[in-house]
């Protein structure tokens, strides 16, 4: 399942890199494609293993908020 989040706090390319690290850190997340330019991240995950709220919590732990 793919979901797109708006991350308004990204302020450089490194932020995108840090968020993309979630694909290695979260079980059930198969790919993360974050873009500083678009201020967005696309998360490809398996909803049977991980929930959306868990992903959002992981994003928050990295210091970013998820926009509407």
């Amino acid at each position, binding site marked *: 399942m793919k979901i797109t989040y708006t991350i308004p706090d990204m302020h450089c390319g490194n932020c995108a*890199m840090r968020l993309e690290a979630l694909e290695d850190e979260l079980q059930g997340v198969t790919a993360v494609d974050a873009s500083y330019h678009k*201020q967005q991240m696309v998360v490809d995950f398996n909803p049977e293993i991980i929930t959306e709220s868990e992903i959002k919590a992981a994003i928050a732990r990295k210091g970013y908020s998820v926009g509407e």
Partner: protein
Amino acid sequence: MTEYIVAFVTGLTTGGLSCLAVQGGLLASSLASQVEQDVRESGNPHKARVAQPILWFLLAKLIAYTILGFMLGWLGSVLQLNPITRAVLQIAIGIFMVGQALRMLNVHPIFRYFNIEPPKFITRFIRRKAKNGSGVVTPLFMGALTVLIPCGITQVMMASAITTGNAVTGALLMFSFILGTSPIFFIVAYFTTRLGEKLEKYFMRFVAVVVLVLGLITVNTGLNLMGSPLAFGNLVSAVTGPRVVQAQSPADTSPAAALSDTSPVCTLQANGNNGSGCGSAAAGGCPMMSGGNRSAVGSAITAPSTVTQAPTAIPVVEEQAQELVIQVENNGYSPEVTHALAGVPTRLVLVSNNVRSCSLAFVIPSLNVQVLLEPTGSHTIEIPAQQAGTRIPFSCSMGMYTGVIIFDK
């Protein structure tokens, strides 16, 4: 030498902070395993044992970027940049810097596109390598890999390395810059990598303002290099009136001489045999000249800003040449504004005496002249006869020091 000092200081101030924001995480990742190991073995996670990998990281980064600078400089030399191309590149770099600054200040989302993002497969590769290694190899590897994720200021410096048009100069420029970034990198990484994030938050605005100012200066130097009337100095001159030094013959007693500046460094004289030949890069050939005896009479005029080097249809007075002497100094050229006779070939003599600044790299963009002068000596550039009203701007190759020759009837 000046450009290396500027590069070093840029690295030491804005570059260090900017790079830290982008590459600090990479360094932290490469240190993580070392810290973990230290905690397990001695319970003392910081200090001496962390310093070493940081130094390896910075050393590898320094070497990698120096090689990159060499390649970029070589690329610039292959492209054979003439003064106008150089000026255009410089203006582009300046706009890029201003864009970066406005991005950092979060002025508008469009400015995010001034930051070049590396492809995903590269960031993924770097991230995974950083996580898995340890010891000396990982910091070395990570330091070298930072070339793949340059920060905005580094990208600007890379573009500058291309404009040098010389592999060694490009390498030295990048070396100076990266060396400048190293102290901040080391200090911050040594004490705590967390500070990187704080610096990013609190100092990015400061960095942005500095980059904005530097960007505007870079655009202006590019405009100077082009001899553009939009350059700051030319705009100021247009408003306040230029500081004119009148060309004159040493024996000239005409009213024009009375208008001249107090420094009698610019001479216009009948002369046909004391030139040392064409400047190697002088365009327009080397017109044959022989002695003449016409003395100079000029007047302070406001000339239209047209530049031409076409000697056709100009009333060239046969067998006459005029000589202009410009003193090359550490802080520019004297006189900055000089008048010459139209319709007569000009022998421009550049005299330097123990000069060590970038004013030695002399360019006349409109004539495609590029000369690297000796610290002490003189160099002659032959300028074909020009139409009345022609302005020929000249500057150092960086566009920092400028001047203009105005041709009058």
